């Protein structure tokens, strides 16, 4: 169930200033225009995705308050949404979130072995982040790629037909930063929204 997890983070002091760049702000305005006059709240989910990507990788209270102010809605309206959807992180996460499907077909085709392998390799349990802040490991529900099981998603990219060798190679690649910020370079918000 999607519970309220917000109290875990509210006490954390957050001094970082949060603000979108002018380009992102104009993208936000463009998104808001997709909805009828007075229905700007509809833009909340897309904007939260962008906020999470652009403003630190997770939705801190300060980021959520900023989004509320952009849309002229109450902060609570943002909190209740952010805590409902699994793709929004209300706790800090690593640079790469490894989301491994644990559902039906993936489970039947080795998804749980992949998770176990990653837990051993990274020395953390599902839900935790490595101390260097590079990887967060997360078990997720069906990613809509069952025919290519087992499946994992890293940020926006899908990795399919996983084997332990493939996973190891991917970890190396991410560690060596070869593909670092690939999505960002090519204008993340523009590309996906």
């Amino acid at each position, binding site marked *: 169930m999607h519970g309220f997890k917000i109290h875990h983070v509210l006490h954390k002091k957050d001094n970082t200033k949060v603000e979108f760049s002018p380009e992102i702000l104009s993208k936000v305005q463009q998104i808001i225009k997709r909805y009828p006059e007075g229905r700007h709240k509809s833009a909340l989910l897309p904007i939260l995705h962008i906020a999470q990507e652009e403003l630190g990788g997770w939705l801190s209270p300060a980021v959520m308050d900023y989004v509320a102010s952009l849309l002229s809605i109450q902060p609570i309206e943002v909190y209740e949404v952010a805590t409902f959807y699994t793709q929004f992180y209300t706790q800090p996460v690593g640079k790469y979130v490894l989301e491994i499907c644990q559902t039906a077909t993936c489970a*039947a085709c080795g998804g749980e*072995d992949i998770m176990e392998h990653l837990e051993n390799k990274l020395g953390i349990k599902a839900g935790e982040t490595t101390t260097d802040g590079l990887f967060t490991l997360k078990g997720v529900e069906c990613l809509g790629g069952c025919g290519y099981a087992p499946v994992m998603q890293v940020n926006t990219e899908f990795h399919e037909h996983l084997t332990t060798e493939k996973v190891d190679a991917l970890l190396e690649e991410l560690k060596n930063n070869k593909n670092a910020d690939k999505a960002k370079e090519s204008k993340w918000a523009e590309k996906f929204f």
Partner: protein
Amino acid sequence: MGRKILLENIDKEGIERFDVYRKHGGYTALEKALKLTPDEVTEEVKKSGMRGRGGAGFPTGMKWSFLDKKSNNPRYLICNADESEPGTFKDRYLIEKLPHLLVEGLIISSYALGVNTCYIYVRGEFKYLIGILNKAICEANANKFLGKNILNTGYSLDIHVHSGAGAYICGEETAQIESLEGKRGNPRIKPPFPALKGLYDCPTVVNNVETLAAVVPIISMGGEEYAKIGTGRSTGTKLISASGHINRPGVYEIEMNISVEEFLMSDEYCGGMKNGKPLKAVIAGGSSVPILPAHLILKTANGENRMMTYESLADGGFATGTMLGSGGFIAYDEDSCIVRNTWNLTRFYHHESCGQCSPCREGTGWMERVLHRLENGEGRMHDIDLLTNISKNIEGNTICPLGDAAAWPVASAIRHFRDEFEFHVKNPGIVKNIKHGSLKKYTV
């Protein structure tokens, strides 16, 4: 080879681009539709007999005719691309390969419904599809098939892509509407139905990706011709997402007149079971439909060949049958542990329950805990009846069908594989040592 009408051009180089799609006859159905009145287009869809491809199988033409056209409010069409039902991945495939087929279907459907604003609700994990769709929409706009005054007919339409953020429940149409309004995905109590009060309390139709894409061939060939494909009330072709222990997992377009056995065994489709292992069970229509053991999925209780149709899969009701659902076909080989699989699915539903109704919120968690202890060799014999009992108390007692979807897999697993549940209670030592549910050569 079965006839392909949706995926006909899927292998054409560059078919995701406007010019190539157009060269292969793209947008001619739209040109044809715009020469008809909106009601005539709806009439063709009615004649086609096509049933919604999102899971419930409700006839699309009939659904469209319920849309309140008298109200002065704007009307909306929402294309449901949330695709989160475990076992289902066809909509993603269709959008990725044939984005213009969907866009054309959306324009025709919007025209029929008198809609000037259409949203495509894409599940948040499929961000890459948003780029593909936006590009197709741009191209259609540039070529005057979309936007203001389409092909000088005076009809105007905007299509916007909207992103979800990871919540299975947002595939349910009223939860999707809430989510599109920027809220938590809590399903609404029906009535009122979206056809009268949907997005922003305006008349709204929510249809699945495949449903809306299929409007294109329906208009091209005419509703009557479309209705000749398939059998009985299962007209047309259906995309099946095939996964599990088979040789050729993937998305297949089938004419709804082939047998389950042909689908599973022939090289044109699943290509038989992986490593030649015997089939143990199949979930035929996505995780929410009842699981069937091999003998009941291949033949009905009357000994007839089970067909890949709405009617045949449902033959025997829930006692011996199942549902076509969203066409998520998952095959399990003989080593699969049904108890673990049932626990897995129940964990899924518990995680995805929006929490509004107590039977669903509490019941899914309760079933998950009981199944977890059974799976780990810590169960008791009466847990099995307890599970049946909980599932019965969820079914039919909730705001939205997620409750039923959580109850059916449990009830059907116990109905057909009770011996395997009992085995878990009687053999805790063996069960505890089984890794990840691989119940190798299990014999009761």
